[in-house]
């Protein structure tokens, strides 16, 4: 696939035609999905949100090499900032374009807050501290309904305003050019736009001075510092940037769902996003997106296939569909990693590393 893309790049006309075709397919996709049921449009929207999250985490884990197991906390922060500033809970109804930057900013602040004291830590110690941080945020969201009701506790915040841009309400169906644009379809286009912007930022970052500095830190922090890279500042920047992407995704999640509760931000979600990044191929933007889409769609796809297949084979339900679904999912994770340890679509740098390394047991190397 990569080679095919590289070959395509050499022919300008072919490249343009290819891009146009992909763009057309992406534009037409929601209508094709809507024909199969609005559920699928919603699932796609969720998958796009996960892609946003995975790209944000990829900055921290893939680019800078800092393992963050509490990433969902930033998503939660973004979601709650939106929920508090655009719902009847406090009676505040700010427009979405004003809240989203605030959400991103607050999430970035949290990123720096967790980043600053943990800069000295490395590898697995950092992983467990970020994990603890994620749990702390969730527990506070769960309990900050007393003595002052801020988060409304486990009940969560409901009736959050949908996104409105220039009089277009994203929760209603509008007719345009003879096509019915339902709420989820409109959100799809908005999410696609945001995702494209984030992809653009990530690709530009990767080859920038900052991106190269992150790569240097990831490969060897001591050497990077010796080369004059301000590791403290750049690591904090990675945390802040990754967090702000999470904050934006959280705000959109809040608006799309219309409801947030601490349930959505449990540890399993953090682990899920890490799985997307690692499974897809850490550090490679396209791999990460592939991982996010796969891990979002495969379980949903299994949800719709496991039951009928079982009925056809045995005539009745032998095992609960959810069990089979999760078992297949678990086995798939193990299998993919054993067969392709660098992820499904590894970055070029990592591919070189894997080829250079022999199969011996790692010594004390971090």
């Amino acid at each position: 696939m990569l080679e095919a893309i590289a070959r395509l790049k050499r022919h300008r006309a072919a490249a343009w035609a290819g891009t146009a075709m992909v763009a057309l397919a992406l534009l037409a996709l929601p209508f094709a999905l809507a024909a199969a049921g609005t559920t699928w449009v919603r699932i796609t929207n969720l998958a796009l949100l996960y892609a946003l999250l995975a790209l944000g985490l990829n900055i921290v884990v893939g680019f800078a090499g800092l393992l963050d197991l509490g990433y969902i906390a930033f998503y939660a922060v973004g979601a709650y900032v939106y929920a508090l500033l655009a719902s009847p809970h406090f009676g505040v109804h700010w427009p979405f374009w004003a809240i989203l930057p605030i959400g991103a900013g607050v999430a970035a602040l949290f990123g720096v807050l967790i980043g600053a004291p943990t800069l000295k830590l490395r590898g697995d110690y950092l992983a467990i501290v970020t994990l603890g941080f994620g749990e702390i945020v969730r527990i506070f969201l769960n309990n900050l309904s007393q003595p002052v009701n801020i988060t409304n506790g486990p009940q969560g915040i409901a009736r959050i305003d949908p996104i409105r841009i220039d009089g277009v309400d994203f929760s209603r169906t509008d007719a345009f050019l003879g096509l019915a644009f339902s709420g989820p379809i409109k959100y799809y286009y908005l999410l696609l736009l945001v995702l494209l912007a984030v992809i653009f930022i990530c690709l530009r970052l990767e080859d920038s001075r900052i991106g190269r500095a992150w790569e240097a830190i990831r490969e060897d922090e001591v050497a990077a510092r010796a080369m004059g890279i301000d590791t403290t500042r750049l690591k904090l920047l990675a945390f802040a940037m990754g967090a702000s992407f999470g904050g934006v995704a959280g705000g959109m999640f809040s608006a799309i769902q219309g409801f947030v509760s601490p349930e959505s931000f449990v540890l399993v979600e953090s682990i899920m996003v890490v799985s997307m990044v690692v499974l897809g191929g850490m550090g490679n933007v396209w791999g990460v997106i592939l991982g996010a889409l796969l891990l979002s769609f495969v379980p949903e796809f299994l949800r719709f296939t496991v039951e009928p297949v079982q009925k056809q084979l045995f005539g009745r339900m032998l095992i609960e569909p959810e069990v089979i679904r999760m078992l297949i999912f678990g086995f798939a994770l193990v299998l993919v990693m054993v067969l392709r340890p660098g992820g499904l679509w590894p970055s070029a740098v990592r591919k070189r590393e894997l080829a250079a390394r022999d199969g011996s047991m790692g010594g004390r190397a971090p």
Partner: protein
Amino acid sequence: MDIFIQQLINGLTLGAVYAVVALGYTMVYGIIQLINFAHGEVVMVGAMVAYSVVGALAPAGLPPLVVVLVATGCAIPVCMLIGYAMERVAYRPLRGAPRLAPLITAIGISIILQHLAMMIWSRNPLAFPQIIKVRSYAIGGATITNVQIAILAISVLMMAGLAVLVYRTRLGTAMRATAHNPQVAGLMGIDTDRIVAVTFVIGAALAAVAGVMVASYYGIAHYTMGSQLGLKAFCAAVLGGIGNVPGAMLGGVLLGVVEALGAGYIGDLTGNVFGSNYQDVFAFIVLIGVLVLRPSGLLGERVADRA
């Protein structure tokens, strides 16, 4: 003062269990620098197997102590087998792979074990049969139950046994050599693959006993019980300095005591602004605090920056 002693007893009991589970994390980490995230699920399987065995034997009219011993005796080999299989299937093929790859297989194994358990033992919390009659003894205004005494005694015995194994036997020497430098240990004639497998199996056996202890302490077993417990135990291992066997024991006990005391006193200290529902926060705050001040844990060796 009574509350203090009571919470101290509860904390020590909980901490002893954390410590036993933490040993499983820390031994594996010490040898192959791998966080075995599926270790908590092994604890859960141990509790579940014991649940079934106790349920099957309880009507037979055997003495309760025998029933519990048989149940534990059944849980241990099952968990050992799972530990061994886990290492062979999910971790051994990934030696030398990028560090995060085994993390994902661990998550996969976790999901598989949880859902297999859900399939076999139902998705509802199971009431663990309380066949041992709970008796309470008073000390200094607080009470301690026989179950708590048993948990403390068994934990201390197991930790002592493990310490003897690691520091006084040939196998232990081989384990420490492998942890120190696998290549050189291999050159000295140690079958490092076997040592790694043995480490997993020992950790799983400890986890099985921990599972039985937790289930009989709280009187409940559930297919998700492993993840939270595993997380806490992992925190304990990191707190003590991951890879360090005495560190895991210290970290576990410390974490249990801090949690119990924190939950007992937070209401009074903050004028009831925060309640005991913040119990889980303490573990993590203590963890973050210790790591910020001592980045390699309480007893962990300070590893110099690698050039």
